[in-house]
């Protein structure tokens, strides 16, 4: 089925992207904090297969970079120095998800050569590496916040839909309130109540909680609707006739009817929440240096000098578009599937 194939392609792309971010240490040639003060705002390094003499080399290589204030970008290529790219080479040590460490990198270049595939920022830090490591923070924050939101939505939606009555009224009024408030204002206000300088992990967790707590109402409402209609189905009434408790009914018969909605909402909310984290960090309220997030990659883009001369700083932002497209596409397909399956 065409829809099925589309879903698998989309999910495949997302999985590949997330894996690349998870194994950032492997795919990134440098650490996110490694500064190269002599190469600030270096343009993306060109990879060559043919050298200046016109010889074809099997192993791709890069040329050395030289500071040159007369050049437009501030750098010129030093054709004299050739640095071949080593694949699956040993480099700086890194950790994967805090579980195991390794020093294997996909590609490396011998010092003092540098390979900035996406250019470097004001401190000479490799943008590609920062993008991959930053993704760990942003993606994790977004996904966890989405899970939190949907989790709260399940709890409240199930309560409101199942028990009905005044509980339903009160909870849904609360949901209305949350739905009505501007999220950025709310987020900033909540952030202001929290101490500005706390440990990184605490800020991270607080961010997730704040973002997740604000957005529970939409999934909550949808789940409430599904629970309401499932509750009246005859097979639920029949189970009641056998003496089933409310908890049993919820667990065994009612909540399984909401799985489709849960998945769809997760796929919809994840990109929104990733964006929320990015926005917060961009505004300076995120986890903070040295831990990069995609937001910290975008922050320099507000500077006039960067906007005018350093176009490669936009690349990370542009890469995000297909990622979000994949998420939304997956959510759309899931929603279509839901509609066709629902009875």
């Amino acid at each position, binding site marked *: 089925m065409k829809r099925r194939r589309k879903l698998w392609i989309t999910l495949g792309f997302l999985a590949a992207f997330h894996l690349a971010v998870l194994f950032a240490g492997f795919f990134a040639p440098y650490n996110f904090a490694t500064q190269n003060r002599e190469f600030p705002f270096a343009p993306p390094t060109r990879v060559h297969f043919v050298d200046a003499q016109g010889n074809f080399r099997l192993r791709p290589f890069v040329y050395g970079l030289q500071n040159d204030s007369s050049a437009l970008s501030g750098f010129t290529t030093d054709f004299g120095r050739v640095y071949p790219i080593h694949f699956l080479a040993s480099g700086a040590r890194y950790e994967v998800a805090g579980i195991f460490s390794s020093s294997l990198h996909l590609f490396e270049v011998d010092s003092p050569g540098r390979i900035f595939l996406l250019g470097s920022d004001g401190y000479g830090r490799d943008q590609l590496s920062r993008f991959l490591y930053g993704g760990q923070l942003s993606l994790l924050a977004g996904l966890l916040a989405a899970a939190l939101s949907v989790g709260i939505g399940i709890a409240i939606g199930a309560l409101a839909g199942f028990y009905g009555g005044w509980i339903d009224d009160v909870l849904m009024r609360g949901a209305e309130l949350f739905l009505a408030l501007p999220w950025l204002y709310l987020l900033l206000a909540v952030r202001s109540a929290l101490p500005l300088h706390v440990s990184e992990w605490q800020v991270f967790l607080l961010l997730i909680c704040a973002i997740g707590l604000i957005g529970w109402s939409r999934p909550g409402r949808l789940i409430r609707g599904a629970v309401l209609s499932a509750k009246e189905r*005859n*097979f639920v*009434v*029949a*189970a009641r*006739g*056998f*003496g*089933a408790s409310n908890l049993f009914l919820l667990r065994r018969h009612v909540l*399984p009817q909401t799985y489709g909605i849960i998945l769809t909402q997760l796929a919809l909310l994840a990109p929104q929440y990733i964006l929320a984290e990015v926005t917060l960090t961009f505004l300076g309220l995120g986890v903070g240096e040295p831990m990069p997030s995609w937001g910290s990659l975008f922050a320099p883009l507000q500077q006039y000098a960067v906007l005018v001369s350093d176009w490669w700083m936009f690349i990370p932002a542009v890469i995000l578009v297909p990622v979000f497209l994949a998420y939304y596409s997956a959510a759309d397909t899931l929603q279509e599937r839901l509609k066709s399956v629902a009875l």
Partner: protein
Amino acid sequence: MTMKSPDAEADNRSEPLLEVRDLSKEYIQRGRLSRAKNTVNALAGVNLKIRRGSTVAIVGASGSGKSTLARCVALLEQPTRGEIIFEGRDLLALSTRELFRIRRCIQLIFQDPTSALDPRLSAAELIAEPLVIQRIGTKEERQAKAREAMERVGLPASCENKRPLEFSGGQRQRIAIARALVLEPALLILDEALSSLDLANQESILSLLSELQGACGITYVHISHDLRSVSEFADEIAVMHTGRIVEQKRAAELVASAEHAHTQELLAAMRTVESICAERRAKGLV
């Protein structure tokens, strides 16, 4: 094919299995802004006696309250007033724990088997569910009982892992019956359970039910709108009209000499249908 119990005369002396006294159920519809209230009397004082081991049919037009009565007796809905006396105890006055135990004894089969079975579960899981809920037996014992029940209703054990959607309508109703039987209830209420089936299925399920009654002495209450078919297999017929039982008699007596006006209407309609059928047969059209 008959379902009349073997010692019909002897039952006259025994205590009724189920007695319903003055059962009433009101539905209040709130108008907007809680001003206008609309009260619907689904049940308006139902009195009914059902003897153990018999087959009683409750007949009535749509809206007469038949389904509401069935649900109240099966303890799926709370009546507004009245008593439901089962084996001498008022079901509406039981404690939660007693109520939980009593549920084994009274079961309801719904009209539409498809909606009554959770489409995500397999036949075996569905049939074993009452045992799980009532915490009867170990996992193996439950599986064995489920298989036994499946065989009894005529479903091959090989399809125990299939989902409801993979069965035909008649088979789904059999699954529902197997599920109800697994608790060994004393009273089985069938709420228009045969209406959605074709004649062949109806006949085979009726004979299955008759077999079970002979073997275990289950009491049946059939809710139906079809007086004609019900008169062929029920011991007694109770006629329901606007929330009340207006007449309850042995089937043959009722058909021969009905007292209440509504019963006479139903009988008249039945006879009209019969005479039309006879005419058509005579003309060779059937």
